[in-house]
């Protein structure tokens, strides 16, 4: 069963994302949380993570730096990453994709938008 890592400096946002996934019918066995990119990098490499949801603007290590660091690490570098961020616009989406992100969702989002975005990476019950 899939394990999902949620990286966001807001604990409230991590809870909202987790609740929306649980209520969506998407199959997830366990959630792992991190408050910034640096912690996310540690948890992504220490756990058998199947999917990563990552914010952009965070202290210590931003989301885009996390994506570049994970993709360049050689370890677990092929885990799908979906950016979930207030950063919108074509340039940011392009930058994220060029850095190795597999999906992009701007906040605020509806539960259906989140489900639709993650449906590419997770099975539905």
């Amino acid at each position, binding site marked *: 069963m899939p394990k999902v890592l949620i990286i966001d400096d*807001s604990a*409230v946002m991590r809870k909202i994302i987790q609740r929306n996934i649980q209520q969506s019918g998407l199959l997830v066995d366990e959630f792992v949380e991190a408050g910034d990119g640096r912690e996310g990098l540690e948890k992504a490499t220490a756990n058998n993570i199947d999917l990563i949801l990552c914010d952009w603007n965070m202290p210590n290590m931003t989301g885009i730096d996390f994506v570049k660091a994970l993709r360049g690490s050689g370890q677990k570098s092929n885990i799908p990453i979906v950016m979930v*961020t207030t950063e919108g616009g074509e340039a940011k989406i392009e930058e994220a994709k060029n850095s190795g992100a597999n999906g992009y969702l701007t906040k605020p989002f509806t539960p259906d938008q989140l489900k639709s975005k993650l449906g590419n990476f997770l099975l539905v019950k």
Partner: protein
Amino acid sequence: MAIEGIMENVASDITSATKTLFETMIMLDLKYDNSFFEDDTQIKTDVIGMVSFTGKYHGVIALFCSKKFALKVASTMLMTDLTDFTNEVKDAVGEVSNMIAGNVKTKLTAQYGEMNLSIPIVIAGEGLSITAVNNHPVVAETTLSCFSKDPWLMTPFISSGEKFDVGLLLKESSK
């Protein structure tokens, strides 16, 4: 375009971003009125959630609200009944400010080139406890007073019977 005109356009973006946020993640009723320049340099409030941005223009987008409204919004977002003004409530206010500012910034970027957003900062006032001569504590309902040399362009909103404002400070950056 003069800075006042740009600010009014941005205020329209603030209204649109706030409306979208309330329709997607907060799910509370929302009414709003026309934006206005706040003459008073001292804005009194309980809670301020603010995000600054830099680029061709720089400034601050800030949410000014009561503690009661902050609790209501955090409770709705978390689908639980929060009664204490905890860090979780401040976190929720920060996220609300962040989502409004993020959406406004995307629109500004499309018009004026790349801009950078700060991480949200939340400031909340606390009740001031004064011990009287007869040793009976008197708790005063204090509010924050936010000072600014430039006038805020305020957009007033009402949700669940509670008034809140989203303010904008904007300046053109030096070339």
